[in-house]
């Protein structure tokens, strides 16, 4: 297996790993997993209006999956909320030089991020009511 320098860097120090602290209307989380591909990923985002303020992840998977989650988390920070639905997978593939056989795992990351978008969207249209 070949790992690009960018995969190596992000694997060794996965920027964006962890959880978003706190709770609130702008915060959403999404998970996805695939037991066959041996991958689980959880994303948490914090939106401020139309802008993503923070994006964090947890991941179980191979070095490419970890690096990809980190790359996506960083790319989301400061991006418009709509970016959650249109991840730049081509940019990701290029940046990390992801081999073909690993592309399936990236789909799970997309799923987790999209789940965040859905949660945010749902929260956005229906103002959160306590109780």
């Amino acid at each position, binding site marked *: 297996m070949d790992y690009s320098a960018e995969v190596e860097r992000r694997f060794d120090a*996965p920027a964006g790993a*962890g959880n978003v602290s706190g709770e609130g209307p702008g915060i959403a989380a999404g998970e996805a997993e695939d037991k066959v591909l*041996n991958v*689980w990923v959880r994303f948490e985002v914090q939106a401020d209006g139309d802008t993503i303020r923070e994006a964090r992840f947890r991941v*179980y998977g191979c070095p490419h999956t*970890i690096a990809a989650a980190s790359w996506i988390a960083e790319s989301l920070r400061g991006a418009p909320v709509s970016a959650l639905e249109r991840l730049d997978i081509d940019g990701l593939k290029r940046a990390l030089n992801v081999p073909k056989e690993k592309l399936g795992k990236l789909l799970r990351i997309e799923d987790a991020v999209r789940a965040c978008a859905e949660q945010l969207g749902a929260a956005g249209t229906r103002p959160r009511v306590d109780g």
Partner: protein
Amino acid sequence: MTTRRRIYLDHAATSPVDPAVSAEMMRHLGADGTFANPSSSHAMGREAARAVERARRVIAARIGADPAGLVFTSGATEANNLAIKGVLAAARPGRRHLVTTRIEHKSVLDAAAAVERYGCDVTYVGCDGSGLVSPDEIERAIRPETSLVSVMHVNNETGMVQPIAAVAEICRAHRVPLHVDAAQSAGKLLLDVRRDGVALCSLTAHKCGGPKGIGALWIRDDVTVVPLLHGGEQQRGLRPGTLPTHQIAGMGKAFELADPAEEGPRLAALRDRLREALERIDGARVNGDPARAAPHILNVAFPGVDGEALRFALREIAVSAGSACMSDNPEASHVLSAMGLTDAAATSSIRFSVGRTTTADEIDAAATRVRDAVERLRRLALGAPAWCSAWRSARLTDDPVFG
């Protein structure tokens, strides 16, 4: 990370060549050395031939064999192919049945698959949860038409020492020759083909301080083998090609130096030190039965981490998932699977193997790095569902430093 000291714990994949061995090799390379073709009849050729014969005697002595039965090959892969295809091809059409095991090296399994394609019949015997083959099961697999039984000595993934003497006794009773892949034994464990009743034995130099690309198949004089390669009359036509004097002399020197009685206990002590340190990692589990292990191999499962990620985290420590010849292969090890491990447990397993250059300091440093890596990856997966974190009862806490 890349500036950290590298630690080599992959001696079962290959070992550094001992300085005495490379010095011996050098003597047969240059214009001032014994470089001539050992098959040449001139004086310089005869000298090279004598160097080959010297090495032949040393190597044969290490397995208690007569030197004349030793056929040099390019390694154990070729030796295993020659043994299996060669004996099956020499068998009468009605006797082309092979018994082997599910835990053999790929070169035995793939050679077995090849003879199956050519019309031979193969029975694959499994192993128990410790990775040990049962002599009884071998006996049950033997049929009147069995022409060869092939069981490895030391399993290259788990280090489990197979009960060769017991299997040999069964083979003798059934008058079936026994082939033993002893690629992992040299310098670690005694094997005596005469005492143990072995008919064919595969050897390789590069796992015990010798060079890569040279090995041998020892063939007892009552066993007929059809050659794989043709051309020239070297090695009684059983294996043509110019004999690589420096490689053979290097193998001879390595086998001379590799004394199991000396090396075995030292390696076992290092291996035990590593096992004790790794067993302290939450959930870590040794694959195989430590009481039945060769001194140099330790295979440990680390549930709750992805195997590829763990190996990448440890890339400055040379270790293996399964065997090196499949290290690009994401599939679970066929050996661990045969032992009943789940795919997840198998792929999260790592083979550590110690050798002549390994020090206690290296063992300690490696154990620390493994623990750090396992914990880091598990923290990264905090909150993961049970299928990928079943190793523990949630004891780690989040670490604010990273991320």
